[in-house]
Structure formats: structure tokens, C-alpha cells
């Protein structure tokens, strides 16, 4: 398909379920202050003394947000997804009932899906002596449950697709939604991702890889320190982010407020190692996204980095950025907001894409929290620390998502022109 045939794609709504528990403005204001939502999380039913620094949505009340009927028929990851989707839908100026269409779709991402539902089943089986699982287990736990619940609740009859690409899941879901609108297959797509990863098995699995940041009651809030000298790893986070993506002409015709244009999407596979990232693959994804969006290095004012805070991953991403941006790298504003909201795995791409959209629309750049001494292997870009940057004029921003498995997805956003 030639570029000339492609439809432009507008971002017209953003919705979050985040660990601070407030609305989108509250979330953005907090991360602009470098405020961390990470606390020491103890698994509630574990027989071990397992605790990890993590960003938990403790104040999220599914019954209050979604009602009893939806709550009792959904896993926590779907509840996050529904709440974020409703919020984005409202933010896009759409009525909760009657505004759906068979030309509108859902594109969703999750990594571990209904892990908590399976955990409940195993707990019933092994600890409570039950010999069977709830008949709702499949419907609650399946990895497309969130997407389908969103489609049902909002009346979206277009494609309803779910992507599981580890930590790039929801960057891919947004990118693939973008493709569907570009090609005219859908007019509007609710795109994003949700994750509820604080299941015992998931926490233990990440801990076993020795990539979970260290922290106790006092220090958990600053456990995740991307790009910092002496960083010790990532922290898991739960929540969701959704955006309403829309055919540009459709958005204009209905008088929608447009945050920005989703103008590029680059994908690649490192094809080298399951868990060790490779700058060469990342370079290809970043370059593809920027090329599609028609951006040269000097046009990009902000990169929301994948930046998990691991020893191995952070310098590889900085290396990739330096290769792509060349002489412009030293002035390139980069931050990793995972330092504050944690690593949402399959929802990380959507959360960070939403932050990137808000940053571009507000011309403000959030910091990497707790960054005091940039590690020698992460230098060469303009790390944004402290309380971020305000009143910066920039016309484009990108959001990086690099998954285990070597799958890379990069989204490029451009200011409304």
C-alpha cells in the first residue's frame, strides 16, 4: 500500500488506571514532580515471606468504577482495562451508551492476562482442598477477555484483537490499531493494554531472573532507578492505559479534541536472544517509526524510554538512541517513567504511549525519578531528571517498547499541525 492511500490517525482520548488512584491530570502532575507510586508489596496469601517493591493500584475499586455485574464476571486485568477504556472513551467526548459502531474496534495488549484467576484456582485446589475450578475461569482468565469486555460494554463491532508480545504487547496493540485505521479497516479503535501481574507465580518468576529491584519499607519508593549508577532492576506495576485512535477526518468531522497525531510505528525483532536485547534490532524499530512519521533526529523532542532499570537493558537502549540520533543525541530529552509507575509488562507500552501523548500535548517532559548519577554506560543523551521540563517547545515524541523475545515496537507521535 502506498503512503498516499493511508488515512491519518488522531489520538482523541486518553484514559488510565494508575497506582496513584486519581485522574489523568493528577497522574501527570505527580509524575512531573518525580513522585513514585512504588511501595513494598507483600503478596496477601503467600506462605512465603515474599515482598517486592511494586506499584499497586490499591485504591482501585472495581465495584465502584464498573458496578457489581461487570466486576463479578471479570479478572482484575479486565477490570483495569474496562476502567481505562471507559475513561478514554469519555475523554474522547463519546457517550457511554449508544456511541458504538460496527466500524469501531478494540486493539488490546496483555502479557500475563488472567494470572490472578489461575492463582485463585490453584489456591482453591491445593490449599482449600477443592477439586475443581470455577466454571467462569476460562471466561475470566483468557487473554482476550479484556478486549471482548470492552467491545461488549461500548458496542464496538469492528475487529476485536488482542496481542501478547511480552513487554511490547500494548505498543503493538496501539501500532496495529493505527494500521487498521490507516488502511480504512476501522474508523476508530479503543487501543491500549492492561496488566495485573501481582500473582505469586509471576512475582517469583521475575525475582528468579534476578532483575527485580531491591528495596525495603523505607527505600521501595526509589527502588527502580533507570540509567542510575548502581541500579538494581525493575519493579512490577499494575494498571491500564487506553487511548481512542481515530481516522483524522472522522475526528475533525465530529469536532473531537485532538491531542496529537500517531504518525509512525516501527517494529523489528532482534532475532538474537530471548532475553538479552540488541541495539541493532532496536535501531531498526526506532528508525522505521521515525521514517514513517517523516521525522529527522532534530524533530524529536522527547523519548519515553523503555528503560526498565536493569543493568543489562538500559545501556543497550541508550546505545540504540545514540546510533539513531547521532550528533543530535546529546540534546535528546530522554526519561523512563517506569521509575514511578513501575513496569506494567503488557500494559507498559500503552501507559508510556499515553504519557508521551500527554507530554507532547502539554509541552512538558516528565523525569526519570531518583536519577542522581547517570551510569557511565548510559551517558550520551540528555537525561531528564528532578521535576522534569516545563514549557519546552517540541513537535514530536517517541515511545520505545522492547520486549523479551526480542520484539521491538516504537510509536511516533507528532503535534497537531
Amino acid at each position: 500500500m502506498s503512503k498516499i492511500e493511508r488515512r491519518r490517525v488522531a489520538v482523541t482520548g486518553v484514559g488510565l488506571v494508575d497506582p496513584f488512584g486519581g485522574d489523568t491530570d493528577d497522574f501527570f502532575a505527580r509524575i512531573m514532580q518525580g513522585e513514585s507510586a512504588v511501595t513494598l508489596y507483600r503478596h496477601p496469601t503467600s506462605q512465603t515471606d515474599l515482598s517486592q517493591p511494586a506499584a499497586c493500584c490499591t485504591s482501585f475499586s472495581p465495584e465502584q468504577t464498573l458496578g457489581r455485574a461487570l466486576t463479578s464476571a471479570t479478572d482484575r486485568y479486565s477490570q483495569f482495562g474496562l476502567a481505562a477504556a471507559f475513561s478514554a472513551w469519555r475523554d474522547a467526548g463519546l457517550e457511554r451508551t449508544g456511541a458504538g459502531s460496527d466500524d469501531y474496534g478494540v486493539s488490546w495488549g496483555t502479557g500475563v492476562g488472567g494470572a490472578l484467576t489461575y492463582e485463585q484456582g490453584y489456591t482453591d485446589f491445593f490449599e482449600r482442598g477443592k477439586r475443581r475450578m470455577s466454571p467462569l475461569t476460562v471466561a475470566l482468565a483468557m487473554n482476550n477477555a479484556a478486549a471482548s469486555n470492552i467491545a461488549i460494554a461500548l458496542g464496538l463491532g469492528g475487529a476485536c484483537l488482542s496481542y501478547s508480545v511480552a513487554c511490547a504487547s500494548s505498543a503493538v496493540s496501539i501500532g496495529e490499531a493505527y494500521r487498521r485505521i490507516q488502511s480504512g479497516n476501522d474508523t476508530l479503535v479503543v487501543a491500549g493494554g492492561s496488566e495485573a501481574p501481582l500473582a505469586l507465580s509471576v512475582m517469583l518468576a521475575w525475582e528468579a531472573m534476578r532483575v527485580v529491584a531491591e528495596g525495603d519499607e523505607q527505600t521501595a519508593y526509589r527502588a527502580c532507578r533507570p540509567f542510575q549508577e548502581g541500579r538494581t532492576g525493575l519493579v512490577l506495576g499494575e494498571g491500564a492505559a487506553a487511548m481512542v485512535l481515530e481516522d483524522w477526518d472522522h475526528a475533525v468531522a465530529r469536532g473531537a479534541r485532538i491531542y496529537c497525531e500517531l504518525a509512525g510505528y516501527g517494529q523489528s525483532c532482534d532475532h538474537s536472544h530471548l532475553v538479552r536485547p540488541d541495539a541493532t534490532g532496536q535501531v531498526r524499530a526506532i528508525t522505521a517509526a521515525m521514517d514513517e512519521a517523516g521525522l529527522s533526529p532534530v524533530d524529536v523532542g522527547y523519548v519515553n524510554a523503555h528503560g526498565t532499570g536493569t543493568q543489562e537493558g538500559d545501556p543497550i537502549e541508550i546505545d540504540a538512541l545514540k546510533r539513531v540520533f547521532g550528533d543530535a543525541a546529546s540534546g535528546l530529552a530522554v526519561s523512563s517513567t517506569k521509575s514511578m509507575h513501575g513496569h506494567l509488562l503488557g500494559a507498559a507500552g500503552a501507559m508510556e504511549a499515553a504519557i508521551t501523548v500527554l507530554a507532547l500535548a502539554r509541552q512538558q517532559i516528565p523525569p526519570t525519578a531518583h536519577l542522581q548519577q547517570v551510569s557511565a554506560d548510559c551517558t550520551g543523551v540528555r537525561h531528564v531528571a528532578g521535576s522534569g521540563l516545563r514549557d519546552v517547545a517540541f513537535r514530536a515524541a517517541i515511545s520505545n517498547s522492547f520486549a523479551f523475545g526480542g520484539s521491538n515496537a516504537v510509536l511516533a507521535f507528532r503535534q497537531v499541525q
Partner: protein
Amino acid sequence: MDNNLNFIKDYLERHLDNPPENLTPESKLDEIGIDSMALLELIFELEDKYDIRQSADIPTPTTVGQLLELMEKYKPSEVNE
């Protein structure tokens, strides 16, 4: 029978935002918020309550009255309510 009716009411209150106030034997299950999934779950909970297992080929009730009949029929005789 009353206990079984309360069992259904309790289920509806736990699962619905606006549970019906007046349940009659004629109330249709799909009209009071018990779809096929919910019926599976309700029967599952009932089996746990009485520690019984119903065969897979039981007739599918469509009204509250039929559901109550089923519950009564499969209630173990030693259960004293």
C-alpha cells in the same frame, strides 16, 4: 424451598447492580440476570453447598420455579433445612 430461594436471591445480590426485588416461580432466568454462564456458576455454588455433583445431562431450567425444583430434587435427603 425458602432457603433455596434465598440462595438465588443471595447470588443475584452478589452479582447484579440492580437485583430484582420480587422473584416468583414464573420469573424467567434470562430476564432476571441469570444467563447461561451465571447459571453454570450458580449450580456450581449449589453443588459446593450440598457437596453433590449433578450429572451433565440435567435439564436446563429457564425459570426460577424450574431452578427451585432442580435444587429440591438434587438436595441430599440428609440435608436438614
